[in-house]
């Protein structure tokens, strides 16, 4: 269980509070108006922001002050998920050896397998600049596969892709996540993503991250805040 216990974050006038529990292996969408704090919530979970108050627990262990790389979270950012001057092999290798050391034969094989898995077999020598936007997303996903963390946090990483490509990527995320048995947190401003992809949805609005609700039920009977966001 990922538990956000009376978590509270403030910065100037802005504040966000969250008191909710997320189950392992679920696919959860985080939606809400822009500026409400969807990315902030993700940053709190991934460890890039420190909460003012409250606790963060994973499987009963407190991780409130754990640095990002020691958390059970692998994250895909909106952009800059790959170092542009390093080949895919080097980029992915960093997931296995963050010190930048040479990979063993076995590790190099794992990198190739991960690239194969996302449909980029044989492209390990390429640099990100020589790939299409969709391929870059796939490569980033392959790295997440190598990191093999139980929580996968996606901060609108496919926002720049066209609708068909985005749908493909979400399907691939679903496959990868179910292979890892990972809890997926997908930040999106597009309600369609939530309906397509997520079993549960967390609505972030008015400074509060609401407890997850089953997506279908949520959209069938949207609460006031969601209605305002959807324009209904």
């Amino acid at each position, binding site marked *: 269980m990922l538990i956000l216990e009376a978590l509270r974050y403030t910065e100037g006038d802005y504040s966000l509070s969250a008191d909710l529990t997320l189950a392992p292996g679920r696919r959860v969408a985080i939606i809400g108006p822009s500026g409400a704090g969807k990315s902030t919530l993700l940053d709190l979970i*991934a*460890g*890039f*922001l*420190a909460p003012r108050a409250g606790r963060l627990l994973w499987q009963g262990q407190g991780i409130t002050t754990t*640095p*990002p*790389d*020691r958390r059970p*979270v*692998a*994250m895909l*950012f909106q*952009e*800059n*998920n790959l*170092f*542009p*001057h*390093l080949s895919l092999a*080097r980029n992915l290798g*960093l*997931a296995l050896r*963050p*010190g*930048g050391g040479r990979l063993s034969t076995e590790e190099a094989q794992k990198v190739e397998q991960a690239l194969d898995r996302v449909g980029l077999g044989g492209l390990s020598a390429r*640099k990100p*600049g020589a790939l299409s936007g969709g391929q870059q997303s796939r490569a980033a996903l392959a790295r997440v596969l190598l*990191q093999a963390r139980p929580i996968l946090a996606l901060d609108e990483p496919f926002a720049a892709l066209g609708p068909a490509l985005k749908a493909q990527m979400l399907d691939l995320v679903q496959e990868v996540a179910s292979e890892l048995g990972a809890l997926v947190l997908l930040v999106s401003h597009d309600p369609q993503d939530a309906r397509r992809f997520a079993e549960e949805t967390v609505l972030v609005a008015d400074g509060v991250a609401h407890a997850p609700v089953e997506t279908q039920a949520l959209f069938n009977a949207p609460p006031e805040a969601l209605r305002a966001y959807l324009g209904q």
Partner: protein
Amino acid sequence: MAPRPLAVSAALIAAGLVLALVLGPVAAVLARAGGWGTLGPGDWQALRFTLWQSLLSAAFSVSLAIPVARALARRRFPGRGLLISLLGAPFILPTIVAVLGLIAVFGQNGMVNGALRGLGLSGFSIYGLHGVVLAHVFFNLPLAVRLLLQGWLAIPAERFRLSASLGLSPFAMFRTLELPMLLRIAPGAFAVIFVICLSSFAVALTLGGGPRATTVELAIYQAVRFEFDLGRAALLSVIQLGLALLAGLVALRLGTGGGFGSGLDRIVTRWDGRTGVPRLMDAAWVVLAALFLLTPLGMVVARGLPGLAQLGTGSWEAAWNSLTVALASTLLCLAWALPLSTRWGEWVGLVGIAVSPLVLGTGLFLIVRPFANPLSLALPVTTLVNALVALPFALRILRPEAEAVRADYARLAMALGMSPLAWLRLVLLPRLRRPLGFAAGLTAALSIGDLGVIALFADPERATLPLQVYRLMGSYQMEAAAGAALLLLIFSFGAFWLCDRGGRTHADT
């Protein structure tokens, strides 16, 4: 975002070293300074001369730059881009090389005096006030042109279109569009050049001298080297320090973002000055400015080529010293600049430029003397001071890019748990390749051409190439001096070109 403890401590160490190396000598100078009574009338004369020549140099540079910048802003002609790039060259041009070139053109046996005598007119001497001002204008006219050109190109093209459609007379247009810009930019340019000329040492050393043309910096040098009056040297250093700090503060207030001349190749379409006379005037200004800047350099090359064959072992040893000093000070400067490439780090770096190299040198001389013979430390001290002096420029180049790299990739590196060393080796250095190359090139070129502290410390056994050129000039071996100057020119431009190019090739964007 959680601070990266190692990066922070590296920055603190670097900042501490810079501050200690600047404030230590300043403290030594303050402690050693003699009473005001030790100053002779010659010293007050030096102070007056320093202010006067700076004033003249800044005034001439800025007022001559106005028509040149205006011509460059509104004309397009073949070679315009090249000429604008060349305006950046004096920054890395060794002072002694320029001085030799200027002597070849304006000196006793130079082209201009030759022409004057041919016309039956009496010649003039380049030594003294006008020589010093001439050399300063040579170095700072290009700077002023670039600052003003930036101002001109920043005037929106729509304004020119509007004034063309209103049919404004040339004078009305000047008053509504160009004058306000000039009033905004020119005082800053004037102040910057004034401050630069206040700390003039090498020019005064070579073209000035004597009771009527000595700057405070030169007086410090003479007090240390010839009279060995360290108390007076320290007091003069305090005066120089106060002068530069005061003027620096004024310049900072009037500050114009200098920049390194990017984006100056734009041409604003204008509808004025399309008739014959203005076109001719603009052409004349551009040609004159180009001749003024290029002829001395051409003379250095022309006179240096035969001299290259005459270089003795002394010159080659000096060349070797210059290269090692440049390499070491470049590495040191970059090692300082990388951890300090943040907003507050840039302020720390500025401390180094507020204090003139000669003042730093005098302070270091005083600090070292109880423990060792300062003369035996000439090269290490020169290395240190050169690195400090180049640091603000290196930071100006590196900081924006380093901050962009951190903004783009620090989170990814944190998420991966990259070690500080891996971050440095795999991300920061490769991403900063271009600006690192540029900064290294500037530092190396500045260091190779520097004739400052080395003059204060050097014994007859040790010299860098610029000092060797100066000594050859002093002993009237003009041909050998010309050869060594050409070598120096090749070294400094070559070092810049190599480093800058090294940063550009194979750099992935």
